[in-house]
């Protein structure tokens, strides 16, 4: 019983002091920040893709909007890039409503296909827009003017900024999960028809989830721009960005609070380390290893890595009458 409290507490402490532990290695410190950034995007996706079960493969649209809003705030208005984040959120919410109303009526694969189409459309539009720098893209401030430009040498400030944002998103998701909306979303995911027949306004709640998810994904885009200082259509709206969000959430456990974070904890270091140690040979081994590990996890743990920990107590104490896990969702 005490282990159930000590382990999360230890993990929390570790998360808080990680940048200090990795002071000696800029690469590992930065990797921590990259994990959190990826987790922000994947956790945002999780709201609509995991909880509501509407698998969007076009979330790069919102990521790109966040990044471009930030760079536009700098290039066209001379503001610090982060000032564009609220704008990006607002546009994302608006666009999510615009896309969501017609496409969320589509079920299953058709919704996924529609989101891919919208993503590609926006990517092409961005690459022909002079205002957005066309195919060449736009750069943020080359040299930090003030601390508000959020351009740092060390990854430590990014780490803590990302940690706070991630905590915010996870906190809100947790709150939704436990409230009426969480139950509605899970009901929709299990069977939309059944949910409707019980009086759940499925269309409206899917749309809320989609808008909320889009707004947070946009924040991830804005933060990406602050850290990397450059965006072009491929790195903002490219389909790989959408796919990575889906894969991370699915790998850790879609529809579970910490699923996307666990996925990011596995995939980001895997990606970085495999590229660092195998990339220089130039044979593309990186992607072979990366892909193989995803296939293995998908084969043996189809519900994501977190399902490992869900099964355990059941096996260890089969006679335990009350598992007392009101927050654990469905293991599908």
């Amino acid at each position, binding site marked *: 019983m005490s282990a159930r409290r000590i382990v999360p507490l230890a993990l929390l402490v570790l998360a808080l002091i990680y940048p200090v532990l990795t002071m000696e*290695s*800029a*690469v590992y410190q*930065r990797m921590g920040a*990259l994990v959190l950034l990826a987790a922000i995007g994947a956790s945002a996706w999780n709201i609509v893709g995991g909880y509501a079960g509407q698998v969007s493969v076009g979330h790069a649209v919102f990521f790109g909007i966040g990044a471009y809003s930030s760079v536009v705030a700098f290039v066209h208005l001379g503001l610090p890039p982060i000032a564009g984040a609220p704008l990006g959120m607002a546009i994302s919410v608006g666009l999510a409503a615009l896309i969501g109303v017609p496409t969320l009526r589509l079920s299953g694969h058709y919704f996924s296909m529609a989101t891919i189409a919208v993503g590609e459309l926006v990517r092409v539009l961005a*690459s*022909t827009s002079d205002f957005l720098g*066309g*195919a*060449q*893209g736009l*750069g943020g401030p*080359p*040299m930090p003017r003030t601390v508000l430009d959020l351009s740092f*040498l060390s990854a430590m400030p990014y780490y803590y900024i990302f940690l706070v944002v991630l905590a915010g998103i996870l906190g809100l998701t947790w709150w939704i999960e436990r409230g009426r909306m969480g139950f509605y979303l899970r009901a929709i995911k299990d069977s939309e028809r059944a949910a409707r027949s019980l009086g759940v306004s499925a269309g409206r709640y899917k749309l809320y989830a989609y808008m909320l998810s889009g707004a947070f994904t946009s924040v991830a885009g804005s933060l*990406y721009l602050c850290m*990397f*200082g*450059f965006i*072009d259509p*491929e*790195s903002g709206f490219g389909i790989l960005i959408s796919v990575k969000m889906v894969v991370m959430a699915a790998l850790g456990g879609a529809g579970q609070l910490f699923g996307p974070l666990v996925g990011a904890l596995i995939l980001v270091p895997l990606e*970085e380390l495999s*590229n*660092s140690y195998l*990339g*220089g*040979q*130039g044979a*593309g081994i*990186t*992607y072979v290893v990366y892909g193989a590990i995803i296939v293995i996890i998908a084969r043996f743990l189809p519900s994501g890595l977190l399902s490992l920990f869900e099964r355990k107590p059941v096996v260890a104490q089969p006679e335990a009458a009350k598992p007392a896990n009101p927050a654990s969702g469905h293991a599908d």
Partner: protein
Amino acid sequence: MIKTTLLAGAALLALAGATPVLAQQVVKIGAVYPLSGNSASTGNYAKMAFEMGVDLINNGNADLAKVFPLAKGGGLPGLKGAKLQLVIADNQGTPQAGANQTLRLITEEKVAGLVCCYQSAITVTASAVAEKYGVPMINGESVAANLTERGFKWFFRTTPVAADFATAYLTFLKEQKAAGLKTDSIAIVHENTEYGNSVSSVIADAFAKGGLNVTMKIPYAANGPDVQPQVLQLKEKNPDVVIFISYTQDAILYAKTMKELNWKPPILIADDGGFNDPAFTKQMGPVTEGLISRSVFAQGKPGSVAAIMDEIYKKKTGGDGLDDVSARALQAFFVLADAINRAGSTEPAKVQAAIKATNIKAEECVAGYDGVKFDDKGQNTLASTLVTQLKNSNYVAVWPKSRATDPLVLPYKGW
């Protein structure tokens, strides 16, 4: 007795400790190139060029040493014969991986300098990391104009930019005009995405300023199945000069269609791109004899730096010679190696100062530049390009005269 043994042991230890330090002093140079993704082929050719460069400096080459002092062998003379070591990383074609790998090469591998990164978008983010850490970076291939407008102190670029290419065509055409050829009407035919649009507008601007008339512009979709309408349009107006900006498939289609419709202009220029793809020259070379293009690389006269390196490179790759991109990448690498050698140190500030003082002559360049010398912004002021012409399915340098290997043959012959 014990004392002497100890002493001897200590002396041996000291020797053992000391010798490797002298013999194994290694200078690391980092390279962040696309080894996977869309541009993997280009990146791997660049990688082989760097490996050849390292080998030439470390192990020497007798023929080359006569014209290229760094190829005497035995490492960098300025650092007591320290050997070079190449640390190459994959930028995966993404600005994010480019920046992350640059950080790794700087902080973990402790490279003395970097060559980076082919794609302009990646050069932006990677150079920002190098700038923050104060490690010199030399870029050999990215042509986005704004890269050297950011006020960076550690970023240097050896390649010409898009405007330089336009100026080369302009000067070339004006010379032909002076020689009596007609250049009154000029048509630009370009594919209609960012690449074609931006290059064509840069050329049109340069020509307008230089007093040449671009009389028609024909944009087209590169993935279209047919280019007859465009060629018929050309045939009707019959311009003196046609400039193509195309990818590979459409370039092949244009060459075929022009032969089918039996129309050719007196001067046909193809701006690099698809027309320089080996797939094009192999397939369409016989019917596009005399096509004019550009490249910073041409083999040059026998015994020149470019010619010798080209031969060595062919042995390494199994037949493929240096080309426009690999020669530009290799040139950037040699500029960095030369600067570290002159600095006599791997201390970043000293290397930076040495790069600023770079003064490489045209005949010491593997790329066809007028030399390498940086301005305050870090741009090579002597960067230039060669005008080449297709001869028996091979591009040969025909302009400027000082570096031409073959005579210019006009008008365009075709088939």
